[in-house]
């Protein structure tokens, strides 16, 4: 275990992040990159962009609370130190997505009101399920919930958003690419560290499986709210804005209807859950579809 954990040391983090993919970035993107004019001037697109960014802030605030809360519950020093880097990563994500809200014109003194107004209630419930485990200092459930379920979801959502923004919004795509690299590391830790702990504590399985099922339901409900009530897609149709091809998992997102995108995202995330949970000895539980 100690050999594998050495790959997650702060020394490794310093070498891969500040000296690697975060070099020459400011708030996650290159200096001089801006949000596209259309997102700032079209009222519908502007509001939908703020709404979707708020969900990222909410998710990352949850991840920050969870990773910091798990440090005191970690059974070994190396895990504590990895979680220290993850805490910092999550704080960075909170910061860069908050800055995106500022870039979109949200006033600093209105930030909390805007977050409260647009935060998806299902995403908040998803976070509450996880944070309840963290509050109880339940390290194994907390790491599965945080580093496999939450981070697994974030990883796929960010990848999909990256594909959609790569051509039309390089600034936001750049911001996302750094977070994707972070999430990949977090998911890797979850899988590698928790497998042995689950083996030592098989009695935890039913509780973890229930948590995964519940979190998955709220995740799907969040996706449903985001795609089924998305005014941005209708606005793009109205404007007859041609979207450049955006390929993700073999599909062209630009040619898909919102409900098809929802299906693709949900299936991708759930498939990932199944694979990753299987690797750590947890039986994937199919959630109720909202």
């Amino acid at each position: 275990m100690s050999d594998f954990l050495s790959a997650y040391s702060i020394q490794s983090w310093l070498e891969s992040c500040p000296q690697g993919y975060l070099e020459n970035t400011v708030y996650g993107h290159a200096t001089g990159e801006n949000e596209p004019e259309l997102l700032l001037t079209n009222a519908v697109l502007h509001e939908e962009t703020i709404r979707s960014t708020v969900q990222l802030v909410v998710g990352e605030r949850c991840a920050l609370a969870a990773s910091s809360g798990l440090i005191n519950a970690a059974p070994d020093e190396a895990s504590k130190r990895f979680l220290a880097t993850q805490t910092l990563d999550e704080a960075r994500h909170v910061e860069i997505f908050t800055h995106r809200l500022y870039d979109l014109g949200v006033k600093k003194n209105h930030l909390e009101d805007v977050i409260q107004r647009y935060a998806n209630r299902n995403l908040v419930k998803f976070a509450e399920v996880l944070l309840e485990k963290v509050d109880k200092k339940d390290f194994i459930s907390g790491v599965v919930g945080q580093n496999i379920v939450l981070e697994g979801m974030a990883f796929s959502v960010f990848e999909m958003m990256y594909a959609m923004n790569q051509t039309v919004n390089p600034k936001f795509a750049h911001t996302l690419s750094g977070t994707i690299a972070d999430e990949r590391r977090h998911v890797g830790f979850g899988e590698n560290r928790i497998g042995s702990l689950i083996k030592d504590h098989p009695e935890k399985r039913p509780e973890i499986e229930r948590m995964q099922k519940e979190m998955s339901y709220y995740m799907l409900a969040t996706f449903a709210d985001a795609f089924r009530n998305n005014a941005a897609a209708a606005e793009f149709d109205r404007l007859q804005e041609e979207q450049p091809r955006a390929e993700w998992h073999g599909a062209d997102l630009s040619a898909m209807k919102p409900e098809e995108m929802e299906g693709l995202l949900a299936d991708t995330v759930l498939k990932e859950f199944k694979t990753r949970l299987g690797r750590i000895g947890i039986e994937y539980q199919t959630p109720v579809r909202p």
Partner: protein
Amino acid sequence: MATRASLSPVDIHDLELQQFLEEVHSFEFWFEAVEGYLSGLTWGHRPDTPEAVLDELERDRLITVLCNYCVGETAALEGASGLISIAPNRLSKVFLATQVADEGRHLEVFLHRLRDLGVKDPEAEVERRASPSLVLFKRRLLELVAGKDWEAAIFAQNVILEALEFAVFHSHGQTADPITREVLAGVVKDERRHIGFGENEIGRRLASAPHIRARIGQVKKELDHLVLDTLADTIKQIGMPRDEQERLGRAYLESVERLGFV
């Protein structure tokens, strides 16, 4: 690390308070700060810094001192991470997240130094050599954090503990072997930032809500003797003269006196 683009040409101290806090408590500010002094280091020191020849007694004393640094840093890591959930705003949470990474790094570099010195199982060694007063301090700090007492916990963590560490590390750095000296120099730079946050946060709270002074004064009274006992143990192990112990004791007390506590 290459130099990153400057955030702003504006002198940071010319900013109004909220904007100043947005800057100095940010990940970006931390990033700019640490890249200046951690660049090119491995486990907190330059890879080519020579290992000094220590006799058995010197090596043993250094191991004891480093073990106690690990206890202090673990307390700081667990304390800072626990404080994130009770921090009153986003900027404090983000700052504390940078502090969590700093404390994790300190723990890591000290554990690595112990391995360099031939300690096979550093974690077990830390447990064996931990100073009882420091262990008690850690327990009390984590109780304050668990009790969600923001002012008392931030005072214990970012004023008392950080001031103690700053005084000891700075002093030890003057006489330490070259590798330990470099490791301590990087740690001291971090501690300066943490103390700044603590003093600033507590100072503002005392100014706006003077009634918390009595409660914090009580915490100080309770922790002072643990701090001074720890200081005495450490100074003895480092092999410093008695007048240095008195000087460090005074330095610690002065750092809390700056906030009006005597």
